[in-house]
């Protein structure tokens, strides 16, 4: 499938000319603004890699069992010193997430609790893979759900001809909406490598650092830091020349590289400074969020952005209102708040969603921490979110209610959260198959979005 796409990229021009189609059509098709540029809708996924303790992030202070199970890591009741921020009289927000409290009050932040994967694995790598493929238990699924979501939003036209590129293009020439798969900037992972969630046939891009994106010997992984961005136009031109006139997979992909570089050069996202008064937290996570905001503001056609934030695997000395986990949560809260404030009015078309591979044990272990558990919670933030609510049925923390007698049970399958966002926010037109073996059923949606 990918070969066909790249053959189209590489040879489509000639093929279409031979069909006698006008060159103007060609320009419109190949350089059509992507769908996000038309709809302006963006999903920003934040992966809390390492399994975050949902019971610390959004503590159920209304349960006595919570305090019984957590002698050193519980968050005190609202009003007490270091207490949780009361959300609804039962759930609270970790005090370190204080920057997010006003967003909850304003109805822009919702929480889905007791949420996660139905697969019982407690292995980080398996559970992360299952979250990213959105196919728990099925190792045969090798591409990511976000890539499949991009595929499902690829084109506004009838999907009937998508398998046949030439016929598809001809449909468009006959007057249908423009082919929207042209931009390699529809799906971008910022701050690291391309995660499994983004891998698949639709072109997506990892941008470890926007300031170093481009052809540059210094930007090579393992190389020294670049002096400045895009410093080597000579090498870029020479490499482009080396790939010109070549055909096939490698040359088509190289064209995508040069195309992405050129689009970013034109859009120049780095010229967007954070809004007045906005300060991203120091460190790689804050940096990733700032660059995602720059890409959104530059209208590069970003539909799905992805960033990792780690440090959640708190087996030892997790802490309560203060301590290790609180520091990580403070960074998360400050980062999301900065992103929200920086994007300003643009948040009307943005949903930010946090996720983690599983939660942690309800009880504490012998080293002041928690071990690998099951259910956790997700935060959803943005204009389209019907916020100010903690969603999902609460299974409770009584022993009988726990998963395998030890972990928070799951009442919302994470795929139903993803599915609602794919359908209602990204407006996927062909969403079937994004979640293999899990048909989309609006009745199971947590009702996150307006």
């Amino acid at each position: 499938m990918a070969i066909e796409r790249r053959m189209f990229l590489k040879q489509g021009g000639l093929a279409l000319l031979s069909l006698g189609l006008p060159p103007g059509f060609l320009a419109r098709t190949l350089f059509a603004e992507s769908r996000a540029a038309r709809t302006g809708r963006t999903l920003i996924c934040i992966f809390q890699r390492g399994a975050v303790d949902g019971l610390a992030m959004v503590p159920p202070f209304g349960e006595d069992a919570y305090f019984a199970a957590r002698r050193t890591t519980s968050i005190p009741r609202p009003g007490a010193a270091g207490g949780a921020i009361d959300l609804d009289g039962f759930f609270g927000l970790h005090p370190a997430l204080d920057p997010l409290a006003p967003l909850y009050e304003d109805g822009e932040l919702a929480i889905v609790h007791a949420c996660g994967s139905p697969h019982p694995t407690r292995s980080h790598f398996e559970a992360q893979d299952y979250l990213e493929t959105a196919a728990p238990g099925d190792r045969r699924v090798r591409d990511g759900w976000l890539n499949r979501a991009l595929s499902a939003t690829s084109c506004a036209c009838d999907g009937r001809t998508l398998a046949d590129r030439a016929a598809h293009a001809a449909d468009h020439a006959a007057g249908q909406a423009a082919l929207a798969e042209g931009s390699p900037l529809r799906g971008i992972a910022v701050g690291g490598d391309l995660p499994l969630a983004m891998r698949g046939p639709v072109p997506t891009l990892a941008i470890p650092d926007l300031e170093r994106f481009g052809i540059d010997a210094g930007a090579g992984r393992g190389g020294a830091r670049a002096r400045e961005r895009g410093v080597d136009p000579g090498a870029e031109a020479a490499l482009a020349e080396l790939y010109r006139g070549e055909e096939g997979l490698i040359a088509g992909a190289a064209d995508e590289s040069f195309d992405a570089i050129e689009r970013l050069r034109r859009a120049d996202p780095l010229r967007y400074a954070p809004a007045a008064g906005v300060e991203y937290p120091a460190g790689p996570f804050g940096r990733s969020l700032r660059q995602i905001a720059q890409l959104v503001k530059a209208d590069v056609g970003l539909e799905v952005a992805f960033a990792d934030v780690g440090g959640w695997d708190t087996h030892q000395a997790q802490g309560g209102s203060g301590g290790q986990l609180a520091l990580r949560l403070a960074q998360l809260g400050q980062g999301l708040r900065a992103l929200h404030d920086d994007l300003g009015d643009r948040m009307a078309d943005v949903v930010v969603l946090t996720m983690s591979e599983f939660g942690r044990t309800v009880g504490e272990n012998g080293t002041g921490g928690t071990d690998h558990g099951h259910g956790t919670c997700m935060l959803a933030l943005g204009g389209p979110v019907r916020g100010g609510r903690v969603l999902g049925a609460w299974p409770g923390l009584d022993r009988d209610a726990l998963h395998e007698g030890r972990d928070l049970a799951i009442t919302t399958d994470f795929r139903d959260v993803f599915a609602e966002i794919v359908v209602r926010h990204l407006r996927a037109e062909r969403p079937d198959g994004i979640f293999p073996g899990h048909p989309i059923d609006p009745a199971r949606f947590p009702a996150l979005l307006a």
Partner: protein
Amino acid sequence: MPPRAPIRRALCALLLAAPAAPAAGQDERADVVHLLQRATYGARPEDVAAAIASGRAAWLEGQLHPVTIDDSGFRARLEPLAAATLPLDALFSAYPTPRAKRERAGAADSLARRRLRDEMRAAGEASPRRIGAELAAARLQRAVYSERQLESVMTDFWFNRFNVFWGKGLDRWLVPDYEREAIRPHVFGRFEDLLSATARHPAMLVYLDNARNSTPDVNENYARELLELHTLGIDGGYGQADVEAAARALTGWSIAFRGEVPEFRFRPALHDAQEKRFLGHTLPAGRGIEDGEDVLAILARHPATARHVAHDLAQAFVSDDPPRGLVDRLAQAFLDTDGDLREVTRALFTAPEFFAAEARNAKVKSPFELVASALRLTAAEAAAFNGTFQYLRAAGELPYGARDPIGYPETAEAWIDGGAMLERMNLALALGAGKTRGVEIDVAALVDEARDDGYFHALAERLLPGGGAARVVAVVSADVAGGASAPTASAERALGLILGSPEFQRR
């Protein structure tokens, strides 16, 4: 020297397979280059010259008998990488597991535990991450510097085909031994021995959960992958009932601890001793380990296994969509020799389909192959831990980092997209410019500058033995003439462009 009989057999096979005596000179050189581009991690000029001098068949024969090849130069490079070579006992004591740490700490409180941790750190006891890092370093060193190139290439192929993810639990300690004992000794041995060694190795028992496969709580994970990936293949004509029967036959194939070290142990109490039907065979009731042994023996000789192995070899070494005739030929070689992998490998690298025009330069290098060939062809001095690993991580092919049992892909489509090409081009420019940490390339010394047709041409021919040098040189010369300052700077730029060219991405 290798035993004589196989040589004779190989020569006969070669003479029978070859349509006619090949025209000497350019054709033979092209054949040798093609062979070396697939059977090694990079066809250096000296390798090509040596293989031409000895003859293609003799070169292959030598490589098929790696013990006959002196590899002391590479051995010396392994010395600092102890974790890759230590026996299991020593490895487990040098890198204590969390379990061992807990036991040593006894019921002590967290303060005592912390003190113990600090003491261990002070005593130089490192985190198991070090094992993975040294193991990965050893793989790259071997690929670049070992003289036993074919053994290295085939070990990596078979490891990948019987993949174990380094990051799963005790596999952080077990994978070095798995490769050393279960894979490498068998790559030119019998497939059945390879299959049996992987089935019994604790690394596999942990990775695919067979250590926990017991009656009545049968765990099918290993049995399913055994049939689908290791032997018959997804279209190999088995059903769910066969998976279940294999899983039941393998109940009790478990591990036991000798001190810290997990070892294979068959546990009769956990074994399902009832009768089973597997692929039309009856495994009688009342037995023990024989059930699993029979399953492995049936699978190792099954025609579907022969076909599956043949397909995977042809795909990895000839073309992403291998010709049917080649798959048939290799499957037949497998069945004729009862799965003798030396014979099957010889059949692969002497097959007419292997040397067909459409097979030349038809494979795209994986990220690891790209790095290894770049270092090898540039005669680089690469430190054990060097900047290319950051590229490999970004490209998604860190050695021993494949999480899925299917291992890393052998086809181009999985490795090539816009982001990947950008990483490749930047890696190339960084290598050329000497900006890759821990990698030294003496650009000036790489080729004889006094050649008539120029330095760039000589450089391109060295790095692109498969062809395309002239085309690349035209672009490189124009670029360098356009804005070069110092001669060394232009040589560095030229090297970067050649390594970043489409020609260098292929083999």
